[in-house]
């Protein structure tokens, strides 16, 4: 009998699919709903030091193969986020996603998330549309190393780094995370993008730049995970365009020990987790994989 249980370093999940940061995870009750829908864990909205409204509308639209968004990291700030964590944490594992501009800021936020009961920390080193944050700090291996090592020094829960595909030195950044003691990498965040209205002759997003997500980015994500698996020993969590069990299996075989689902919660509905879980289990039984671990990296020679 195959099992969907998996381990990401010290984090044990009964189900391998998590809610990716930014989707149905800004409030405690939203996170509880996603646990009930079959998510093995929920990664919170990325939370910073102070409340942030994000970019003005339009900050989202449907495109071929997915969505673009330039939400701009809206969040109530780390102090108020305690109330949401208090609601969600008794119901399942919450991974606290945080963003900051410096190692000190990340450390402070991570400490708070640990106090609130987060199972692990996910460092947002990859948001493509927020000035001074995200991929602006996450494409410099030195900076990434110092953030990871500062956060590792300030919390005792596992620390994951979510990486951007918008760089040609992804393996180097992955190694910087590993060398600094990071417990896992999460790949990928959205692809930096732009949408223009021909009729109005201007970019549609108020922020001009945005990030592409959804099925269109899946092959990029699978390649990124494959690349990272080739150079890293720490676990990888795959994310980017997963909406079916086949997508999840691709990421696992590329080298991911677990996966996250974001856009498909919109395109396919909140019950997407149940469909992925059922399909994955049926596949594993038919093809003789008794565990997720036995499938991880199967596509590597």
């Amino acid at each position: 009998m195959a099992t969907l249980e998996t381990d990401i370093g010290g984090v044990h999940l009964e189900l391998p699919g998590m809610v990716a940061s930014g989707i149905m995870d800004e409030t405690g009750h939203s996170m509880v709903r996603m646990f009930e829908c079959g998510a093995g864990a929920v990664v919170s909205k990325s939370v910073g030091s102070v409340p942030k409204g994000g970019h003005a509308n339009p900050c989202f639209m449907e495109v071929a193969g997915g969505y673009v968004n330039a939400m701009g990291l809206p969040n109530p700030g780390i102090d108020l986020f305690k109330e949401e964590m208090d609601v969600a944490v008794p119901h399942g594992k919450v991974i606290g996603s945080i963003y900051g501009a410096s190692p000190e800021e990340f450390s402070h936020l991570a400490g708070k998330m640990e106090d609130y009961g987060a199972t692990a920390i996910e460092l947002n080193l990859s948001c493509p549309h927020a000035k001074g944050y995200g991929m602006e700090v996450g494409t410099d291996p030195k900076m990434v190393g110092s953030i990871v090592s500062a956060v590792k020094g300030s919390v005792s829960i596992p620390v994951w780094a979510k990486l951007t595909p918008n760089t040609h030195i992804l393996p180097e950044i992955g190694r910087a995370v590993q060398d600094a003691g990071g417990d896992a990498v999460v790949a990928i965040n959205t692809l930096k993008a732009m949408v223009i209205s021909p009729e109005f002759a201007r970019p549609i997003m108020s922020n001009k730049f945005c990030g592409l997500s959804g099925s269109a980015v899946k092959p990029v994500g699978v390649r990124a995970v494959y690349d990272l698996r080739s150079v890293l020993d720490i676990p990888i969590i795959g994310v980017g365009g997963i909406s079916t069990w086949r997508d999840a299996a691709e990421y696992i075989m590329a080298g991911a020990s677990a996966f996250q689902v974001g856009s498909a919660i919109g395109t396919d509905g909140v019950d997407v987790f149940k469909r992925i879980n059922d399909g994955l289990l049926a596949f594993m039984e038919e093809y003789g994989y008794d565990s997720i671990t036995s499938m991880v990296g199967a596509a590597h020679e």
Partner: protein
Amino acid sequence: MSDVVRIKKVVEEAYDTKTFFFDWNAEARPGQFIMVWIPGVDEIPMSISSITDSTKSITVKAIGDATRAIHELKEGDRISIRGPFGNGFDLDSGKMLIIGGGVGTAAIMPAVAATGADTIIAARSDRDVILEEKARKFASNVWIATDDGSKGFHGNAVQLMREKVAENDYDCILACGPEVMLYFTYKACEELDLDCQLSLERYMKCGAGVCGCCVMDDSRVCRDGPVFNRSQISMLTEFGNSKRDECGRIVKFR
């Protein structure tokens, strides 16, 4: 995906409210909404106020930057829209009484047009009553309530609703309007043991059920709603009490 449509007619509904008609082939149901982009200003959710084959409309009250910018638009101008979004009303609900309060009247008009059900239009004053003529084209009973008594029933929507419910055998109340009106509509329906479908409103960004910024408890107003029935509303502790701002912070109503 967004669609660019051309405004083919503008109708003044009141001193501060206009309806903009446009051709748009999308399948829309009564109670659904669209996201309207006003370049350089904002993108906002607007209820669809009429559905006649390919012709649709939005009815806009000028209250903020975006709605004032929409009011500047003339016949022939283009707007960019996304949608339709949301669940819409379930019109297979027996004998219905439909209530619109203020500019919320726009959101219930397609349901009035589709069913011809008895309708209450409530507003502050005579000059704020909108879409009355339109409603009379479809519904044999259209009653007006104004807070100041300048037209029709002197009182609010819920007071008039109680009178009409006592005189008629309704199975379900459909309503859209200010949250305080909807809250007391819900309370009255509980008391009278009547089903209801209320169209709610929250600050929205994506419109598609992805970002989660419009949630009330665990329900997305944009995707699970905007129309919620009585048993769903009974689970929404935030209804009538609080909303969330653009940062996701709770803002209490009182």
